């Protein structure tokens, strides 16, 4: 175990799984340290009590993680029962339990700052790369990870068509399309990281309905567990080491990363030496680990001379409207989303604020019954008794949600830090999230909620209700906390994901993103990982690691 390998990859999720595959199949020896267990497709169940309530794939609720949350630094962060920062702890990471909505960014996402100008008080910036540079890697994701879909009217240019057709339209999609047509909007098929037919030796989707929060028993969801890890292991160069909880990255007197220290499944401290370290632990864990790796050489945390580690956290803001229709939708069957609306993707100055977003229709709260009873049912009805029962019986199969997802602006004040008091179950300083949406983010969410209510009416909902827009108190989208950039003073990694401060430390995951996109970041995280791997492999070949 003490033998030096070429690369230690920390994290096996959307980015780490791809990097492990790309580096190992190029001939490098790779050890992947994953803090979660090694679950296989056959381990995934439809057990709502375990998966949703007990947060099985997230490794349990917040009593395990000890995370704290506050809206601003003047507040004392408190520890909510549910972890505010939510990601899967399992081989394949959050690509295992995500809903698999899979949008590319568009050219404008990479250069919006130049086009729109600065926004006071924010770190709104252009990316150091363009859509055109990333496009070949989006296409690589399409074909190697497996993406189903069909072109939409506003899509970014693509060099190859989707490898397979979209998932079949569901009742929620039909209703969204109906509403959109009446309102002069354009519904389009949702792209998914889910196979609509067999691809690359994997089975197609069986429409079981357990995508959101659950692992895919058919292997049709294009997680790195299904699509990449088997290829990495088949290379003979890659060892996946599950239940390995990293506690620090160590550097030598030359300032190079030389080993990663972790707790094994029995809680014993181990160290893995490596020629280079790839950090892909997600936008919260990556920042935490760098901050935990502070040393006399790096007093503010590793790779943090800019002070940007942990800053600019972006979650994407959300809105939810719910509607009940005359006939059953049975939307709990099949994938969550089949139609989306991207008419509001770009910033429109007439709206009076920065931002854009996307709209989708999905069962959401009507996917499973406990989730529905607890959070999704018509809130105007009493929560127990005959009326409650009758409403549940009527609404569950007839209800859908129209969800809006928006941009988030990058702010210094939204960040991941180490909680000074709380620890996780492994004794590590817990993640402290500080987050308050920029007013423009909330305004955009409100705008989309208004459109969602109009869409519900236009689609013929018998009743509909909204939750209203409230500041975000946590999230699954963990973006921006080690942003890429050309200037070491205002970014953590360069455009090729090499950290500015530590020459053999590469960082690639949601933390690399400079802007948030419009709400479905995983496609971009995966494309960045393929691109980073190309650059790392090229550097290794040139002897420049």
């Amino acid at each position, binding site marked *: 175990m003490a033998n030096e390998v070429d690369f230690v990859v920390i994290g096996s999720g959307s980015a780490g799984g791809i990097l492990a595959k790309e580096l190992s199949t190029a001939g490098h020896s790779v050890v992947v340290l994953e803090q979660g267990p090694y679950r296989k497709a056959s381990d995934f169940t*439809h*057990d*709502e*009590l375990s998966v949703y*309530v*007990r*947060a099985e794939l997230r490794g*349990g*609720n*917040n009593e395990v993680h000890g995370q704290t949350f506050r809206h601003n630094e003047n507040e004392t962060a408190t520890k909510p*029962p*549910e972890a505010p920062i*939510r990601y899967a702890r399992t081989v394949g990471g959050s690509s295992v339990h995500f809903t698999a909505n899979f949008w590319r960014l568009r050219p404008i996402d990479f250069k919006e700052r130049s086009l729109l100008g600065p926004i006071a008080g924010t770190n709104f910036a252009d990316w150091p790369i363009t859509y055109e540079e990333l496009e070949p890697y989006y296409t690589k994701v399409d074909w190697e990870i497996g993406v189903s879909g069909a072109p939409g009217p506003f899509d970014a240019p693509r060099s190859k068509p989707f490898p397979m057709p979209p998932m*079949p*339209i*569901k*009742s929620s999609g*039909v*209703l969204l399309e109906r509403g959109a047509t009446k309102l002069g909007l354009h519904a389009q098929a949702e792209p998914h990281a889910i196979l609509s037919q067999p691809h690359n030796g994997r089975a197609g989707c069986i*429409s*079981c309905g357990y995508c959101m*929060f659950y692992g895919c028993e058919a292997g049709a969801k294009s997680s790195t567990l299904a699509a990449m890890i088997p290829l990495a292991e088949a290379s003979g160069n890659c060892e996946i080491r599950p239940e390995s909880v990293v506690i620090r990255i160590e550097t030598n007197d030359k300032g190079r990363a030389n080993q990663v220290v972790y707790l094994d499944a029995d809680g014993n401290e181990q160290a893995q030496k490596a020629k280079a370290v790839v950090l892909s632990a997600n936008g919260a864990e990556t920042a935490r680990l760098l901050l935990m790796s502070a040393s006399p050489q790096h007093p503010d945390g590793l790779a943090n001379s800019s002070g940007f580690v942990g800053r600019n956290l972006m979650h994407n803001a*959300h809105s*939810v409207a719910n509607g009940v229709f005359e*006939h*059953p*939708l*049975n*939307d709990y*069957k*099949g994938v969550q989303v089949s139609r989306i609306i991207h008419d509001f993707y770009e910033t429109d100055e007439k709206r009076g604020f920065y931002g854009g977003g996307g709209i989708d229709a999905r069962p*959401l*709260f009507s996917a*499973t*019954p*406990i989730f529905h*009873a*607890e*959070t999704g049912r018509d*809130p*105007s009805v009493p*929560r*127990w008794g*005959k009326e409650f*029962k009758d409403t549940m*019986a009527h609404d*569950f*199969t007839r209800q859908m949600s129209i*969800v809006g997802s928006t941009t988030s602006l990058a702010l210094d004040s939204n960040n991941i830090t180490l909680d000074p008091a709380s620890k996780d179950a492994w004794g590590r300083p817990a993640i402290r999230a500080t987050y308050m949406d920029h007013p423009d983010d909330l305004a955009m969410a409100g705008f989309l909620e208004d459109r969602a*209510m109009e869409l519900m009416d236009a689609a013929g909902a018998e009743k*509909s*209700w*909204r*939750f*209203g827009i*409230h500041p*975000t*108190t*946590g999230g*699954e989208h963990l973006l921006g906390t080690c942003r890429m950039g050309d200037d070491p003073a205002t970014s953590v990694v360069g455009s090729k994901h090499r950290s500015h401060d530590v020459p053999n430390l590469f960082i690639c995951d949601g933390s690399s993103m400079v802007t948030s996109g419009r709400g479905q970041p995983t496609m971009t995280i995966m494309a960045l990982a393929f691109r980073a791997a190309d650059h790392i492999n090229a550097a290794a070949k040139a002897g420049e690691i």
Partner: protein
Amino acid sequence: MKDSRAVSRRQFLQSTGAVGSAAYLRLLGPALIAITESACTAKQQSSVFKVLSEQEALDLMAIAARIIPTTDTPGATEAGVIYFFDNAFATEMADMLKDARQGLESFNREMQGAHPGSGQFGGLGEDEQDAFLKTQESTQFFGLAWTMTMFGFFSMEQYGGNKNHIGWDLIGFEGNHGAWQYPFGHYDAEVHKETTDGE
């Protein structure tokens, strides 16, 4: 102007978080959400309870039966929700049993105060039960009973409740199914029919 359908902040907090959040449930403490499959293997429904006394079981059953009443369709009683309670309190929620018992004692004490000489909660008329339950809605004990009733009614049978999928059948949910073939619902069936007819 505020949309008349807007839900109040209080209702919002009570009933929902945004996507993926479940604040209300999470208030009930970690032990509640630590129920494990292995620890909750269902037992024969006819056998005695593992930890609940007969009277405790009757009281909890009566409460659950008002939360999801038996009407022209089965309710919490028929779904065997009480076996979920018992299994959970016997295993992963064992450390909450003491609090639950105290909560039930307090509930019964207040019930006796409101209805002197009435004996058990289940002995009251249904309207009296509902009226009394309304006074208890804000208590932690009611929250626990409500949540456990939902879990017992809608979770997989292996946890002891949802007998013969009574809970799922009530709402039209064919849960824990393998593959589905589209069309799934009324509206997509219309579209898929058009598509098929056009071929």
